[in-house]
């Protein structure tokens, strides 16, 4: 198997080689080479920012299609709580949960149920491990990958508790085996996902050896089918009471939900990848050592902001607030206030500290950084992206790593042209906005 699985992919035919994605990528993982975007797989964290920003829809998330559930004898849907916020005028979550089987599923297990267990486990873990502060949530896979690549020194602060979707998968499989008598591998567990990072987390998990989930289907792929099925369900006389989670479980769909689920006032929640990076900078600097728990969501608004959702995240959030009103605080409990070992990660989150290093040894890296300094003196500092790198500094880095040359810079090219034709003004070769002002 390839060392790196990524859900985020490029459709070369649609890519125009523009600079939108390279500028937006939080880990500077994209370059334009030969007129097409190239994703640097070691750096990509599958956050989906490029999918959101690409005007040509050339970036997409690889995910499973609904027909793949047919590979299994018994199929279970795991709806993310973000799914509940996608529908207008919905007053009962049971309508969604009763409609899902008509898409081919045999049963439904809410991820929000497992989320409530994870919230309880978090509270216990926080009490038992007061020496690690702040604890960072492990729920957003894009954030976990961001920490590995950009803040490798903080991996030990990541709480080693599995994500709700994995716990939901584990419990759903146990339940299905008990009910059907089938072998565990004959049960297909499919997450209805709001984001590509979860697809990656299922195919290539961090913290556990193998995901308990077999596949991930995008919310926006099943949305039209589900909407039709829900119309029929609504007309039916009786709805089965399948919705078994409360305020805390549904709260996980939006930023701040997980933090408030700790029932702890010394917690912090940030959303949006740039905000997450700012908070991680502060953690790195030690200024947040007195905060007990930090929830970070790569998408703005939390999971409702995932790039595979159908609805605007702010609208979805407002609907979820209404849906969870008058719900019990939590419907799922661990029981004896003991942290079950099944909820703990089985392998540590390994830092990827080599990704950002300029060279294997400090001396060589220093020589390269000195060369970068020289290059940055002759680059224009416009960060225009025309060279295919997101900034002049990133181009300098690519050059010292030996990936390209300074000829990629259009401004350097201009100067070289001028050397060939020394009687002409430099300005002849560049577009008007970049020409020097004449008195």
């Amino acid at each position: 198997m390839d060392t790196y699985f990524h859900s985020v992919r490029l459709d070369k035919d649609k890519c125009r080689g523009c600079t939108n994605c390279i500028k937006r990528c939080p880990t500077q993982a994209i370059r334009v080479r030969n007129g097409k975007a190239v994703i640097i797989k070691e750096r990509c964290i599958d956050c989906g920012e490029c999918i959101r920003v690409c005007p040509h829809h050339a970036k997409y998330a690889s995910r499973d299609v609904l027909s793949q559930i047919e590979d299994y004898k018994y199929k279970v849907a795991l709806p993310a709580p973000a799914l509940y916020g996608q529908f207008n005028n919905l007053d009962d979550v049971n309508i969604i949960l009763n409609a899902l089987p008509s898409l081919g599923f045999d049963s439904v297990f809410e991820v929000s149920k497992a989320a409530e267990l994870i919230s309880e486990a978090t509270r216990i873990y926080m009490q038992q491990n007061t020496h690690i502060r702040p604890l960072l949530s492990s729920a957003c896979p894009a954030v976990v990958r961001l920490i590995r690549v950009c803040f490798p020194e903080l991996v030990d602060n990541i709480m080693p508790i599995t994500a709700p979707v994995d716990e939901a998968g584990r419990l759903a499989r146990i339940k299905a085996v008990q009910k059907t008598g089938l072998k565990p591998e004959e049960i297909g567990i499919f997450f209805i996902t709001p984001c590509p990072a979860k697809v990656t987390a299922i195919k290539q998990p961090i913290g556990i050896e193998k995901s308990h989930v077999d596949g991930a289907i995008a919310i926006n792929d099943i949305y039209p089918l589900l909407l039709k099925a829900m119309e029929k369900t609504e007309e039916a006389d009786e709805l089965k009471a399948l919705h078994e989670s409360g305020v805390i479980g549904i709260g996980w769909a939006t930023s701040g939900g997980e933090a408030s689920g700790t029932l702890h006032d010394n917690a912090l929640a940030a959303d949006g990848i740039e905000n997450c990076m700012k908070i991680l900078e502060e953690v790195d600097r030690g200024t947040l050592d007195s905060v007990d728990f930090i929830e970070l969501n790569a998408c703005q608004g939390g999971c409702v902001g995932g790039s595979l959702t159908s609805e605007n995240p702010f609208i979805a959030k407002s609907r979820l607030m209404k849906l969870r009103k008058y719900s019990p605080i939590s419907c799922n409990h661990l029981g004896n206030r003991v942290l079950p070992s099944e909820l703990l990660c089985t392998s540590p989150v390994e830092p990827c500290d080599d990704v950002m290093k300029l060279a294997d040894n400090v001396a060589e890296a220093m020589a390269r950084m000195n060369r970068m300094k020289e290059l940055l003196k002759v680059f224009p500092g416009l960060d225009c992206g025309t060279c295919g790198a997101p900034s002049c500094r990133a181009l300098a880095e690519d050059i010292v790593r030996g990936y390209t040359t300074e000829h990629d810079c259009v401004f350097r090219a201009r100067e070289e042209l001028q050397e060939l034709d020394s009687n002409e003004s430099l300005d002849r070769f560049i577009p008007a906005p970049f020409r020097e002002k004449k008195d």
Partner: protein
Amino acid sequence: MELLSLHYDVSGTDFTCAGEASSKIKRNLKELGFPTSVIRNVAIAVYEGEINLVIHGGGGVIDVEISPECISIVLADQGPGIPDVALAMQEGYSTAPDNVRQLGFGAGMGLPNIKKYTDEMIIESEVGKGTTIKLKVFVK
């Protein structure tokens, strides 16, 4: 071998820019592949020093000289200077104005923290002329 020098100007008027230089220094050290503990020590010391440049020094400069064995940092300002360095080194002693304290700074831990996170610290200060702090963090 050629050393690597980095230079940063720190504005004394824009408080919102405080911390930018230390972030850049930290990023550079990460790219150079220094051990995490060394990077953290340098980052905290430089951050505290940078905040001091902004709050007390009216801005200044940060010069970092890097070798594989040692990271040397010089923070220099032309501010009011420190009348009693020993007093300023005491934990909790602060002359920061109220508006800065309201932001959570000025707790009197800046200089003691710099001392704590570095292997060598020399303060040269003259009232009315300015302050220069020379720091060293060794790579063990």
